[in-house]
């Protein structure tokens, strides 16, 4: 599926649109980390929690559960939230 990557993660992906796969959000993030080592820990902490200033959208709707099931034609956006100056 298509994944939109925010600018802080371009040092990993070099492009803001990548292809990745996974039956769940958790699996998708593991696939992204396989392709772009180190990316996952910058957005998901060691207790498998989304980091405070990162947001995840599936088909335009914000999601909070890494167990959420995904379909191959879903569109996933990873977005940086505001975090001060």
């Amino acid at each position, binding site marked *: 599926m298509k994944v939109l990557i*925010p600018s*802080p*993660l371009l040092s990993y992906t070099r492009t803001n649109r990548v292809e990745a796969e996974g039956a769940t959000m958790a699996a998708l993030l593991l696939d992204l980390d396989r392709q772009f*080592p*180190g990316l996952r*820990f*910058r*957005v*998901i*902490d*060691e*207790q498998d*929690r989304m*980091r405070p*200033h*990162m947001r995840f959208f599936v088909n335009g709707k914000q999601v909070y559960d890494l167990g959420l099931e995904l379909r191959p034609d879903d569109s996933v956006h990873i977005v*940086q*939230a505001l*975090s*001060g100056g």
Partner: protein
Amino acid sequence: MVNTSRRQASRKTPAKPRSKKKPAGVSARGVVVLVATRKGAWLYHGDPARKTWRPSGPHFLGHIVHHMVLDPRDGRTLLAAAKTGHLGPTIFRSTDFGRTWKEALKPPAFAKPPDGASVAARSVDHTFWLTPAHGSEPNVWYAGTSPQGLFRSEDGGVTWEPFSIINDDAKYREWMGAQQDGTPDGPKMHSIIVDPRDPKHLYFGMSSGGVHETRDGGRTFAPLIGGMEVVEGFDKSVITYHDPHCVVMCPSNPDRLYQQNHCGIYRLDRPSTTWERIGRAMPAKIGDIGFPIVAHPYDASTAWVFPMDGASVWPRTSPGGRPAAYVTRNAGKSWKRLDNGLPARDAWWTVKRQAMASDMRDPVGLYLGTTSGQVWMSRDEGEKWSCLASHLPEIYAVETALLR
């Protein structure tokens, strides 16, 4: 080599004889100053006279860099602890003075607690402190994090594992307190110190949470808070209330530690376990509150501090807007103000706990990184200061290394 006896004769307060031999040729070598800021990192390469400085940077522009340290054992491994406002914490590693960087494959991260654990799961917000381990353990490093955690790498900072019992020990977790017991930027593990005589003998400080020591390589730790004071009205027997800001070991006498605490300046001479509040000898108008403290590399009687305003709401600025370092040359019996060359008035910056450092030259150079983004240096142990760099972001840490 500088004529030490002549230099000592020029001081108003004679220094005690030095006990650590300086490495041969130390004063012919250039110094590199490593500056970590809230918005990236810079390196300043000095000439042997320490008069001209070649900047390199920004590295990681926009990253919050809490600490950057060069491994003195190999003279080339450089680690930087970084995060951004959005992204989680990581460690970057360079072996060519920042021309190229590689990210750690496994940055410091807490373990997941087992089912039924009595302590809550934690995640590392940022790595705050980096310490190369003992000379007999090449490529071994320690890291301290916020919230308080202790980590170790055995491969030069590429992969990191939780170290010792303390990260998930119920008693230590109680002593670490909660978020509101820490600094505004989160509670810190800092001042990780390795005894040069024994790789299993370590100290660390926690803000809050006291000073602690192990003699068995981290299998057990014990608090070391005798004589340390806490904020008025609180019980000093409660470890959580102790807030050491910075602890250093004297390179020339590893049995002597100096400490700048939330509540004063202290000295500890081992095997004693009772800190002596040597800040009582500071001028009353200045007080003995601050963050950094630096031990002289060759003279254990000499240490420098940079006092700040800890009155009322804790402005954390230079007292009266007049920045100054203070030095003791008699292990804390008396202090001398060192402000020649620093702004005489209307300067409302201060220096954070990691942002004051010495070099290993003779005379020793001192370096200050300010909250207003300036680097100040002295080539003569603080007698005269000059500005090395301006207009940087808020400076979090300054370290030095001798170039080979």
